């Protein structure tokens, strides 16, 4: 499975029903990804806490094939 697909799957499980986008980071190698998650769960949370929710789901992947991610979190209306 491609790493982008795998990460997408993991985030979809962590954020069921929410909009999750995963793609390669421009100008970087395959182990660098860009992630956008739009969720109601982020409401009222600090940016750090929002990113931590995403990072937490990817912890195991960082031990293995994933090197870096660029995260953008949005609160869904």
């Amino acid at each position, binding site marked *: 499975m491609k790493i982008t697909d795998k990460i997408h799957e993991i985030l979809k499980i962590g954020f069921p029903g929410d909009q999750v986008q995963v793609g390669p980071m421009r100008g970087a190698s395959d182990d660098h990804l860009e992630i956008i998650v739009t969720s109601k769960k982020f409401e009222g949370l600090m*940016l*750090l806490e929002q*990113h*931590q929710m995403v*990072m*937490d789901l*990817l*912890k195991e992947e*960082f*031990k293995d094939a994933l090197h*870096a*991610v*660029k*995260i*953008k979190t949005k609160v869904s209306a």
Partner: protein
Amino acid sequence: MSENPFKIINPKVDESHAKQASTEIQSGFDEPDTMKRIEKIINSNSVIVFMKGNAFFPQCGFSANTVGMLTQLKADFKTYDILQDPELRQAIKEYSNWPTFPQVYLKGKLIGGNDIVTEMYQSGDLAKVLS
């Protein structure tokens, strides 16, 4: 009398080395428990960046970007090179629940990695929290 060998050192280089030494903290704390060592480091430096390399020779683009923003804002910050300390490198990921570097701590609290610091820099919040 032979010439002083130190004369050959370009004073500019010398200056930057002195600056580097004052910015980068070494393992420093004589604390066998890594988690306690982390606590001591973040609590005794008001702004500290755990990064790959140091402010003058960053070893990763994200770390370079973060110290670039802090430097631009003339923040009084310290850096810690996690590449020199594999034990702390692993432990701080657990400590902060944050698996990547750089990690920026302000007054003992994680404010985030490069993405968050970049967003705060762009919104002006970084300058605010640093002042």
